[in-house]
């Protein structure tokens, strides 16, 4: 620590280099913190639960190659055949699959004559839908009646519904549990809420109300239907093969889509995923460039001061003292840079969040980022500093040596 004063005195002696260094650190810190925060923010979107048993679920979109009148019976037969497959835990017919980007949305209101209070996604299916999706009931109970049938738009004939907790909270902010047994209005039609499930996402990952979903027990008998299949753990591939094998036995059968839910999720969050990958790259490259820069400058500083180092060594300084001097110098400059960067980051962040609707970077980020930055600088200085320590004290005897 007694090196402190000489270090500060050297700054006064040559100002440009330390000033540039501080500026560089400040700018790096500012970008690093913002990029890392954004990357993490995107990543947190990716890890939101969809409500489904994600690892073991797949869906198939297929046609019902029969007249409209026979389709209900066809669905019934398909479901029971697929359910009997040894690798399948549960199967359901549904009007849509979460996060696929294709689905129906509804207006939800608590009063009959009022404008809608909020929007919600919609899924209609058979009795087993809750089990196949792997949904967790947190209030009320499951469906009691036998499923109803409709050609399209099943919510028009439904009488009972189950909603997600997020939707319940949006409708009854004070006590969402009171929604059970209440009548709410779905596209202006009264429906009785039988139960509340914990989570079930709608079809669009970017939707503001993606956590709002309504489930009804109505089987849609349109030409194309979605079968959602939950496989036994570790047997998803077999389940998919066996399901397709069964379906294709029927003449005129077409498989429009066949995807595991993990694929669906990946596609749905492709943009977020790519963005977080890019930001991660920015962070890595930035750290690398900064480390290289610090390394280059430290090496240069050592070369320039070889004689002074030699003199200090000749006057009795230990190798550790020389290393300590350079490390301390770097640490001081880095801390000043981080301080400046913090102020800039906060100022910029306020602007940024105004422009781009970004959240303000939390303080922990600044602290962790600062520590990382400091460690990075120290690591990059270590090698040149050790090189400095190996300067022979005998160098002082050679006058005129510059390099």
């Amino acid at each position, binding site marked *: 620590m007694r090196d402190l004063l000489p270090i500060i005195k050297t700054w006064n002696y040559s100002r*440009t*280099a330390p000033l*540039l*260094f501080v*500026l*560089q650190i400040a*700018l*790096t810190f*500012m*970008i690093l913190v*913002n*990029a890392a925060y*954004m990357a993490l923010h995107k990543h947190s979107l990716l890890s939101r639960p969809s409500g489904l048993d994600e690892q073991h679920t797949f869906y198939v*979109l297929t046609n019902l190659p029969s007249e409209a009148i026979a389709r209900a019976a066809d669905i019934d037969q398909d479901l029971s055949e697929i359910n009997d497959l040894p690798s399948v835990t549960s199967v359901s017919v549904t009007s849509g699959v979460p996060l696929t*980007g*294709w689905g129906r949305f509804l207006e939800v209101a608590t009063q009959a004559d009022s*404008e809608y209070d909020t929007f919600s996604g919609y899924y209609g299916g058979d009795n087993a839908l809750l089990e196949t999706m792997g949904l967790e009931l947190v209030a009320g109970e499951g469906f009691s009646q036998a499923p109803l049938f409709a*050609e*399209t*738009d099943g919510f*028009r004939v439904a009488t009972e519904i189950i909603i997600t907790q997020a939707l319940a909270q949006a409708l009854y902010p004070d006590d969402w549990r009171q929604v059970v047994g209440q009548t709410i209005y779905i596209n202006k039609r009264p429906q009785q809420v039988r139960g509340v499930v914990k989570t079930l996402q709608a079809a669009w990952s970017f939707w503001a109300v993606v956590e709002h979903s309504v489930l009804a027990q109505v089987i849609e008998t*349109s*030409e*194309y239907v979605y079968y959602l299949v939950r496989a036994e753990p570790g047997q998803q591939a077999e389940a998919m093969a066996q399901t397709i094998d069964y379906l294709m036995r029927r003449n005129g059968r*077409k498989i*429009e889509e066949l995807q595991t839910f993990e694929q669906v999720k990946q*596609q749905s969050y*492709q*943009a977020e995923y*790519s*963005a977080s*990958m*890019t*930001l991660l790259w*920015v962070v890595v*490259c*930035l750290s*690398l*460039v*900064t480390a*290289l*820069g610090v390394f*280059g*400058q430290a*090496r*240069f500083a050592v*070369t*320039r001061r070889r004689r002074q180092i030699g003199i200090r060594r000749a006057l009795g300084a230990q190798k550790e003292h020389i290393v300590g001097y350079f490390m301390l110098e770097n640490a001081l400059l880095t801390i000043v840079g981080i301080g400046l960067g913090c102020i800039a980051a906060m100022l910029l962040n306020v602007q*940024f969040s105004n*422009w*781009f*609707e*970004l959240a303000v970077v939390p303080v922990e980020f600044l602290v962790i980022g600062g520590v990382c930055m400091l460690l990075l600088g120290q690591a990059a200085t270590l090698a040149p500093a050790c090189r400095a320590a190996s300067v022979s004290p005998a160098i002082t005897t050679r*006058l*005129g040596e*510059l*390099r």
Partner: protein
Amino acid sequence: MLMRYYFKLAWISFKQTPLLSSLIVVTIAVGIAATMITYTISYMMNKEPVPGKADSLYLVQLNSWDPQKAYYSQGEEERVPPYLTYQDMQNLWRANQAQRHVPISGYRDQLKLPQQADSDAKTALVRSTSRDFFSAFNAPIRFGSPWSVEADRQGELVAVISADVNQRLFNGQNSVGQSIRLGALEYRIVAVLDNWPILPRFYGEAMRAFRKPRDVFIPFEAQVRNELWSSNLQAFECWRDPEDSSFEAFLSSECVWVYFWVELNGPSERLEYEEFLYSYVQEQRASGRFQRKIINKLSTPVEYLTQREAISQDNHIALGLSLCFLILCLLNSMNLMMAKFHTKTLEVSLRRAVGASKRQVFYQFCIETLLLGTLGGALGLILAQLGLKVCSQVYQHLSSDLMQMDLFIVVLTPLIAISASVLFGLLPVIRASRIEPASQLNSV
């Protein structure tokens, strides 16, 4: 002559301090590459989709929505649906008041050659539109020509196929006159498109604006007459249910689902078309439809994409970040240049002592930064190309055409690298040229 000597000196100096010099070059290159990658993507996304037609293509939007409530309102402002009902589209098309009319819809079906087995069929996305589609959006045609006006009217089973499909089914040969089978129907090929990297693909769903154009194009009426509908592909919104579940009832309903583009030349035609739309809506109003406030909108492709928020903010953020990144890299290289030039104090004072002027020393070092900048720019261009390759892997949801530099950017990249490195090299260069003659010589 002296120039050449300076270049030689610069190259010698590069070799004298290989580590520092390469660090400078790499730093510049990384900064340039990062900036150019993000700039390329953002530039390609915001590019005018149809060159020269920025203010002649318009999406027609009408307020045919529910008298009881707005389609969508943001504060005081009322928004109208992006698409039209089938009947409005038909009426506007028949009235023939614009240069060109392009309705946009589509479906999905199994595509194969008539002689192929069912199992060889592949799912194809079909775009149903009008013959004007190709001329209005400058779609390049390799073989044949678009279908006739008659085909549009009668809904003939004719098709224009993409270069990809032509390659797959006909090995890239001229397939005009041949047939393809889409589901249960056989279509005669009238034209084959060339590669068509239209970006953004503004004319359909904004959500899918950065995908490739579809595989097969057919007359709009062919889709309608044959009741072809893919229930999970074509978006539609209804404020009142159709009379029954038949396709005719759907067509005559108040459901909106057809994007309708018109081409209008010049502001006078636009004004005339606006007047025409106004009188059309008035007429419809008299017969009981259009009971809301009259909002007729003509949006250019860019206006439409902005309105639908197709171009995400992430882009601007990425561009801003990468610009900061470039500045940082340049600051870094500036520091390194200072270090590099410092090692030459002796050389400068010697040159000054034997008669070189400040200006000559200044030029010498400028040439040196120029060399470093050029090398950095060249390396940066290579890195950027590699980076774009990686990006097209990571950004699979976007068309790979986005990840390609055009000539403008290829030229721009080294120019930015050179000018930026010379600019940021100025401070070290000025400092180096200020060294007094013979100041260091006493220590030799």
